């Protein structure tokens, strides 16, 4: 079994799917000659040529729209946003076109397309370059939304996203491309819409995804010292969400904390907390707590940024609170 970085796992997924299916092509800024802003697509231009690894000018609405039009006409585009912050100028394409055209055409057209790229805060990039679109895009019927946190998931889920017949938003993270992990040599797929227990435990359920995962896992380690055994559930697909796996964990622990790299107001974490509390009220021994960004625009200064982003310590405190543990 190979140990790959997330960027390499993503590249392997792209490579395998492009090899398997000539309809699959990659499009975005700097994906070809520059080898990708984060080197995800390194070497693919050389292997597949300019018709299938398409460098675009800086025009997100334009190339997102081209991807949508190409998908309707039978191709399977993978559109890379250098980061999802820049997808804001293509939101009309994502929301009015990608999410709606299958429905509006009463099923006449299909939109097998992936929009992928980094989402959420990186490090000291300030507010325009540190935004989390989890809630904004998960809000929209017609889209599927995936968020990956390990090389294994990155490869298996990207391959499934490319094969999915629907438009899929695929969130990565600038600061996690170098995260390493084991990836099997044999081809495999991970189905969309399935959460994964990343750490088994019996006392408190910590629900998270994307950049939240390493924080949740660190917090679980910290809590071990307090004698609290956390189960960490990685949601992996935000829409459709695998509530069954999350609920099975909460039924066991009776306590839950949601950890998310996103704003708190109307967040995916808010949706999760509401669902758990509405559906499992009788199971819960404590209210569901959330640890997210603070509700501010992301500042540049290192100390301020560190305060805004949830830390393992903050998450540990929340876990202790739902466990009614004296802090």
């Amino acid at each position, binding site marked *: 079994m190979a140990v790959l970085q997330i960027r390499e796992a993503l590249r392997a997924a792209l490579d395998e799917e492009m090899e398997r299916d000539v309809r699959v092509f990659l499009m975005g800024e700097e994906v070809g000659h520059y080898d990708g802003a984060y080197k995800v697509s390194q070497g693919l231009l050389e292997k597949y040529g300019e018709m299938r690894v398409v460098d675009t000018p800086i025009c997100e609405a334009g190339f997102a*729209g081209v991807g949508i039009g*190409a998908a309707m006409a039978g191709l399977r585009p993978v559109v890379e946003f250098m980061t999802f912050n820049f997808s804001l100028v293509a939101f009309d394409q994502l929301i009015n076109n990608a999410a709606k055209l299958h429905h509006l055409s*009463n099923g006449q057209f299909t939109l*097998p397309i992936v929009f992928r790229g980094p989402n959420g805060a990186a490090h000291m990039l300030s507010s325009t370059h540190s935004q989390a679109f989890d809630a904004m895009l998960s809000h929209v019927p017609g889209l599927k939304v995936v968020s990956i946190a390990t090389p294994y998931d990155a490869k298996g889920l990207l391959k499934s996203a490319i094969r999915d017949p629907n438009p899929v938003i695929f969130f990565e993270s600038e600061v996690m491309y170098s995260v390493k992990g084991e990836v099997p040599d044999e081809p*495999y797929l991970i189905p969309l819409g*399935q959460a994964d227990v990343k750490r088994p435990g019996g006392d408190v359920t910590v629900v998270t995804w994307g950049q939240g995962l390493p924080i949740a896992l660190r917090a679980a380690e910290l809590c071990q010292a307090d004698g609290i055994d956390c189960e960490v559930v990685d949601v992996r697909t935000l829409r459709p969400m695998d509530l069954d796996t999350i609920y099975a964990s909460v039924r066991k622990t009776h306590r839950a904390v949601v950890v998310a790299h996103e704003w708190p107001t109307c967040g995916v974490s808010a949706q999760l907390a509401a669902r758990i509390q509405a559906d499992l009220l009788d199971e819960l021994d404590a209210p569901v707590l959330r640890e997210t960004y603070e509700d501010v625009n992301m500042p540049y200064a290192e100390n301020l940024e560190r305060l805004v982003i949830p830390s393992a310590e903050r998450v540990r405190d929340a876990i202790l609170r739902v466990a009614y543990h004296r802090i």
Partner: protein
Amino acid sequence: MSDPEGARPHAPPIPRTKEELLRLYREMLRIRRFEELAARAYTQGKISGFLHLYIGQEAIAVATKEVMRPGDRVVTTYRDHGFALALGSDPKACMAELFGKKTGLVGGKGGSMHFFDRSVGLWGGYAIVGGHVPVAAGHAFASKYLGDGAVTFCFMGEGALPIGATHEGFLLAGLWKLPVVYVIENNQYAMGTPLSRTSPVDDLTVRGPVYRFVTDRLVVRDVFEVREHLARAARRAREQQQPCLLELVTYRFRGHSMSDPAKYRTKDEVARWKAQDPLHRHEEELRTTFGVSEEALEALDDEVVEEMQAAVDFADASPPPDPEERFEHLYVEDPSAHPDLGPPPGDDIPAVTVRSFDPKGA
């Protein structure tokens, strides 16, 4: 406001036969009568939402159908009934869509602004101004990628020129030499705003060369003329992968939508344009040049009205969508039901589906 005489001078009339003129006149009349009946149904409360009529611009859709080959696509705006009818959609399904019925063109999901009929090459009525321009470039990209020889015709109002998506679509079409024909249907108003208040220049084709488009401009008076200009553009797109920008100066005789009394235009101006209504010009031509009798013209009109009244009756009698249909087509549930979603050629070794990964290999 640009003067109807202001565009390039007219070439000598294009030769035509009586049969051909009758055929195209009839197609234009079908659109006009369909929309007149739709307008009436709207005032009777049988149609709701926004209803944008194409009356006055019919020659453009009819000419487009003339130059299309199998596999070609039309992408247009919310002012889309004319294209559906010209391309061959069933008027019954079109009217039923306006009525919000189960039997509608898109099952009552889209209404007037969102007609899609893939079977005739109508790839969509789009209701966000300019948003379809890059999508059309994407269709043309797929044509180039697959080498299918198809041309995509993308129509927009002159009101789509200010918005960014239009220019991003143009840029990529020009940069990648995509087989697409962009047509500006310049009916001189975007809702109540005349072009002079949104464009620093009258001639909108000046925007073409910066994207390496071939450009062309014409006042719409004669369906044969429009056909010739469209055919030339389509040939360039198909044979030379040369995108074109064609500005067709035209006029809508009704308000922007049914709720607009169009008070921003003078009676004189409307009368001046109505005097050159292509439909009436061609009717007159049939009468005078080709000696078609009044009775024959009336009989033709009666036939068309009958066809469109049958569409209204069909729409009226159709059931509304079933309640469960609101959950339909949000996502593709069964890919095998869609011709575009088949497995790639030679794919016989599917990847293993796994749920989660245990690095310790337990």
